[in-house]
């Protein structure tokens, strides 16, 4: 049974995320490091786990925690609040929550799992998998990575996964694969023999969240860690849905953070005998930035449901990711411009927001590829 939260409880959650962001995350953003003190991140995430914001097998109330399934808006709100301070850290909350939410969806209860951190391995190329066969109920393969029978009858995994977003020290991977005509999923410990993990460094932004390639060379699968059946297709769609909305929420948070910082700077910086907030050129930038963020928020703040995944809801999520990341990218760029040369330097944090939001736009389906999907999947009309 899904748990319903009252408005007070939701506000309490938001307040908790706000406090955590301002106390722990802000201190992580040591200006000496362009992307924060990444070495301190595991400790901060541990703190978040104790606070209840980071969802895992034990904590079902954090970002995308399964007890929040009736309230996707709460997870989105928490991500936005965290991303106002650091997009990369918010991405860690998002990815871990996503993985445990999908695990719970596939095999309830996941609390029997011993892993504290899990990442979803979905992509095999620079764009998202062809999920038409699931939507249209055909048998066209979705993945190239396959489950095969070994000589001794055991199940083996063969292939490669790219652009896997994970936490530092990630312990397991939920890998989507092809099992004959059907998609399947397998939970692999990070130290599985035959699995090579290649970190993808360096990158433009979101440095707090790791990106990895997985090379799977006949990785032995334990029978109880393979998920088969219709639920896997549904889990795949759910993964994309949550992924796109979470990324959108993080983009909005980064945009909000950038706008606040620009507004503050504009009220303090003197130029031409007055603070620059009085200059029409800066006013135009600030209002343009705000307009884009408000539009993005309006798109994000819809009545989302995790329990009825179909073409239309997926299409709507893809449209939201496409539009929101574009709007927020422009918003952050405009906010950065208010700083002049200082916006380009690492000290003010604006260039980090710029890099982070551009990374969000490009990842898990850039606007160009999402446009193709949206068109391909057809509309409500």
């Amino acid at each position, binding site marked *: 049974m899904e748990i319903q939260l009252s408005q007070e409880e939701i506000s309490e959650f938001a307040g908790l995320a706000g406090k955590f962001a301002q106390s722990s995350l802000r201190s992580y953003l040591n200006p000496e490091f362009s992307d924060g003190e990444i070495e301190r991140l595991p400790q901060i995430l541990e703190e978040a786990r104790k606070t209840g914001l980071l969802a895992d097998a034990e904590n079902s109330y954090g970002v995308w925690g399964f007890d929040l399934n009736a309230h996707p808006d709460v997870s989105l709100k928490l991500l936005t609040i965290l991303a106002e301070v650091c997009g990369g850290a918010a991405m860690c909350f998002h990815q871990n929550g996503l993985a445990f939410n999908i695990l719970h969806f596939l095999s309830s209860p996941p609390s029997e799992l011993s892993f504290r951190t899990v990442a979803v391995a979905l992509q095999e190329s*620079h764009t998202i998998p062809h999920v038409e066969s699931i939507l249209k109920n055909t048998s066209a393969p979705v993945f190239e990575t396959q489950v095969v029978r070994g000589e001794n009858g055991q199940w083996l995994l063969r292939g490669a996964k790219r652009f896997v977003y994970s936490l530092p020290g990630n312990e397991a991977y939920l890998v989507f694969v092809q099992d004959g005509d059907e998609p399947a999923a397998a939970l692999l410990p990070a130290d599985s023999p035959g699995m090579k993990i290649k970190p993808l460094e360096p990158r433009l932004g979101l440095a707090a969240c790791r990106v990895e390639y997985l090379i799977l060379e006949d990785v032995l699968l334990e029978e109880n860690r393979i998920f088969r059946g219709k639920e896997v297709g549904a889990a795949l769609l759910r993964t994309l849905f949550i992924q796109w909305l979470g990324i959108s929420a993080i983009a909005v948070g980064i945009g909000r953070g950038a706008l606040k910082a620009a507004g503050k700077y504009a009220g303090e910086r003197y130029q031409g005998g007055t603070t620059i907030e009085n200059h029409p050129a800066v006013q135009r930038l600030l209002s343009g930035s705000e307009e884009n963020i408000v539009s993005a928020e309006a798109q994000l703040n819809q009545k989302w449901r995790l329990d009825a995944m179909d073409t239309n809801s997926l299409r709507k999520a893809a449209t939201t990711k496409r539009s929101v990341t574009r709007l927020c990218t422009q918003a952050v760029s405009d906010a950065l*411009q208010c700083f002049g040369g200082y916006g380009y330097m690492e000290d003010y944090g604006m260039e980090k927001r710029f890099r982070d939001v551009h990374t969000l736009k490009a990842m898990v389906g850039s606007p160009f590829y999402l446009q193709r999907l949206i068109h391909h999947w057809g509309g409500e009309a």
Partner: protein
Amino acid sequence: MDELVERLKMPNAAQRMNTLGRWLVDAEPLTIWERDTRLLSRAGRKWRRRALEFSRRFIRPVAVEADLHHHEFDRRAFINKAAKRGFLSLLMPAPFGRANLRAYLRSTIFQVILIAEEFCTESGGIGLLLLVHYLGIAPILLSGHFPSYIRHLIPLQLKSMTDNPTLMAFAITEPSAGSDVEETEGGATARLVTTAKKTTGGYLLNGRKVFISNGQLADKITVFAKLGGEALDSWTCFLVDKKMDGFSVGRQERKMGQRPSDASEIILEDVFVPNKNIIGKLRGGWALNRNVLNYSRPAIGAMAVGMARGAFEKTLHFCRETFLGDKRLIDYQDVQLELADMFTQLWAARSMVWHSCRTLRSNQAAAAATKVFATDTAYAVCNKAMDLMGDHSYIRTGGVERALRDVRLTQIYEGTNQINRLALIEQQWEAEIEGSEE
């Protein structure tokens, strides 16, 4: 069907025309780069081809490392290579430089903007590293003071042929006056701290300049300072040698992009500058500074076009090499449309840069409009490149995200694009309004 399509393609279809008709069809399979190059003067063609060759041979192999580990990049050795090939000497003809005189008399900066685009195609930061030198020289050239040409430019030119060329930089920005010193109204109220005080045989300079490109590396810097307690209209340009007592380099900024070139703070503490190092006239600095910007802004436009062209070329390569389903990306029509848009935007921006530079004197409105259009367009092209490359785009070794980071600075320096829009209005509006009412 396929055969018919082949026959209908222009080169084949044109074979059915008469001789003159065939001749009037231009279906030669040439790159746009080659077509554009053929439009140039002999000197322009020469420098563009040389710069392309230099860029691919020397900049391309080091571009990634120079960005990632810029502190370890041997910038001096790189500058020497460029200087020996004449790439630091194109702002003046002989005996002050190596620009071709005939081409120069038609356009002062054309030869410079040609190499600017080529360098930045491989690395915006290395492009800046080499081109900032011209910004440092520009006040001397634009001062119109022939003795200064003899005194300062000839030694520069002679040294450029040696193993240790003199590198120049340009310093106007101050901690509390960035955009202020790049437009008229801001200038009137600018909070400037760098001052020059008269003393026997010269001036004592005190103050700070910030964000000075190549400030740490340059040997000499053209520094602008107000006289005593006077206002900005007393601004005077001084040629400051790094070896002068009281000169030091302070903080080096940590920039998002264009990292091979440093952006440093310059500290001046009772630096004695002899009278002979005054560039132009006393109190002539403000006009000189504004005019330097008129010549440098189109070059920024050319640099931005180069950075975006680099992103475009990498994306084109990616689209040829990458499959989506059973087809290469480039075989999809929507990908082709996107690439065509990028191509068109780049061509338009380059055309504007070239058009605005086809005069001996650089015009404020044309320079500002060019900088705004070219840099905004280049940013848009880089965004499209990121879009087409999806997740691959944000990997640092790929070069596309670097182009995005690099190009973003071109919308900020040499006056933000907002300031440049106002510069266009300032210069052009009265004439346009009067012209429209005639």
